[in-house]
């Protein structure tokens, strides 16, 4: 062991705060050693991705820590779960799966985590503040918290997040430290039409492209001449965290640590440069689609979870329309956001359209596809990226308008006009 420990770290390791804290601390210390990190530091909040049920292992891990009396020592929120615990019977979810996924959810709540069940915790009251040291799981949330808010978290794996929450300690390294937060790669947008930059489906595509280029490095996007909305930034971050492992990005003139080009790079020169043209974006957009014009089984919106603003933008698009009988239309969100949308009357147009909301889980974490549902469509880079591998289905990426129109016609159709200038 090479990491320097405080007296209270040693007390945790010695089991003085109970066996769960001892186990969690030993994992934190081993991870510090893996990264050659000389010291630990405090965090003041955590977001726990580990509650997604993947099998006996993730359940046994959670139940073990809970049975050992584990209690989080910092405010800790829960990410997407493996189960919409009230609505799962409406989907082809095997009861045995539901029982186990639920046991895992209960174990995390027993440890004191707040059951907000969302991959967009930054759109809830658990949103951190600029400069706050946090330990977050969930790749899109990590990128958003670091990039858009300026909070500080490393990219943490499942199961480590709960160890950090049970001890309040993490290795003092990586993106927790100011000097490691400067941009490394320059992504320069050249000749991109402004109407396209204002369009929401631009951001998942740009995210996919930037993530592929940057991988685990810190990209700085320059040349964005519009001010993106929070949900557009959310889509951008989610995209970069699928095709790459981007945990922090800067956008010159937009994100808080990039008021200027020089500030984004902490005064250094970029190590690599990628020039992005409309052609590159078209190619990236094509990569998110694996099917051509064909009958559509399901439209899925809401990865990351749909926000109130997204419900508000969707409602008028659905007015007076109805989905085709063979095409399901689902919006995934959190129970909190669904309740807010309902209170604002935003779920009625969705239901009249023949669509529905599923809460707390998502199409990737809960079995929601019926046998034979093989062609899906989405406005999300994350759904598009993971659908072929995780769901064994084909996927088409399009704008929200494309998704609605495709659901109405029961076939994948896309408006190419903004991408063809």
């Amino acid at each position, binding site marked *: 062991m090479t990491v320097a420990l405080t007296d209270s770290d040693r007390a945790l390791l010695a089991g003085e705060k109970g066996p769960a804290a001892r*186990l969690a601390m030993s994992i934190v210390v081993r*991870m510090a050693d893996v990264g050659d990190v000389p010291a630990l530091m405090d965090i003041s909040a955590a977001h726990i991705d580990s509650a997604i049920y*993947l099998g006996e292992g993730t359940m046994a891990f959670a139940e073990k820590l809970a049975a050992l009396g584990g209690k989080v020592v910092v405010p800790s929120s829960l990410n997407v779960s493996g189960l919409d615990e009230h609505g799962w019977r409406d989907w082809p979810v095997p009861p045995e799966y539901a029982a186990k996924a639920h046991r895992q959810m209960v174990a995390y709540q027993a440890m004191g985590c707040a059951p907000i069940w969302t991959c967009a915790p930054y759109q809830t009251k658990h949103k951190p503040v600029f400069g706050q040291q946090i330990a977050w799981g969930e790749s899109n949330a990590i990128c958003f918290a670091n990039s858009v808010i300026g909070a500080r978290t490393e990219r*943490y*794996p499942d*199961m480590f997040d709960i160890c950090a929450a049970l001890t309040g300690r993490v290795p003092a390294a990586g993106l927790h430290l100011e000097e490691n937060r400067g941009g490394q790669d320059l992504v320069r947008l050249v000749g991109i039409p402004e109407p396209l930059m204002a369009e929401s489906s631009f951001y998942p595509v740009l995210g996919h492209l930037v993530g592929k280029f940057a991988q*685990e490095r810190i990209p700085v996007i320059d040349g964005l001449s519009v001010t993106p909305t929070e949900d557009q930034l959310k889509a951008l971050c989610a995209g970069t965290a699928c095709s790459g492992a981007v945990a922090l990005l800067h956008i010159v003139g937009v994100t808080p640590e990039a008021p200027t080009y020089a500030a984004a790079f902490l005064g250094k020169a970029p190590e690599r440069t990628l020039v992005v043209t409309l052609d590159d974006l078209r190619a990236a957009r094509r990569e998110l689609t694996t099917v051509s014009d064909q009958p559509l089984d399901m439209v899925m919106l809401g990865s990351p979870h749909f926000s109130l603003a997204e419900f508000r933008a969707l409602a008028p698009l659905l007015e007076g329309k109805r989905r085709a009988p063979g095409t399901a239309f689902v919006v995934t969100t959190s129970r909190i956001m669904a309740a807010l949308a309902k209170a604002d009357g935003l779920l009625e147009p969705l239901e009249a359209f023949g669509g529905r909301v599923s809460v707390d889980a998502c199409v990737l974490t809960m079995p929601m596809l019926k046998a034979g549902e093989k062609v899906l469509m989405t406005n999300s880079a994350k759904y598009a990226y993971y659908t072929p*591998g*995780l769901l064994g289905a084909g996927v088409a990426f399009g704008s929200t308008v494309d998704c609605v129109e495709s659901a109405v016609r029961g076939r994948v159709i896309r408006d190419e006009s903004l991408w063809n200038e």
Partner: protein
Amino acid sequence: MERMIAGRVIVPGTGSGEILFSDQPLSFWGGYDQATGEIIDRRHPLSGAMAAGKILAVSASRGSSTTSAVLLEAALAGTAPAAIITAGPDRFLALASIVAEEVFGKPVPMVALSDEDFRTLAGAARAEVLSGGSVRLQA
């Protein structure tokens, strides 16, 4: 022809077998089938390969935080690689194996090589991860 490379132990243990090499990072979530050990990221060069019981040499993990949970499930289900070799330590894969060891006593042996040494794994047919972190390669 045999060749030895010195690596760094990330999680102790030994393993040997056919080597699956790629310098492309792999997300285990959506990229590794925990039930079978097949690599299922259809955009990855190793797509379709069965990694269970083999020596998986990927430069790093990528993408989802859930990569660690998938490797833990595979370790418990017996569908994990016999050992994993990465270019530099990968915290996501390391965490999974550390949890598998600390909580379940079933670690996946893991060794990190320098980037330069890692690249020389291309073309090797078999590898053996030895205790102490060395890797023995057979062409």
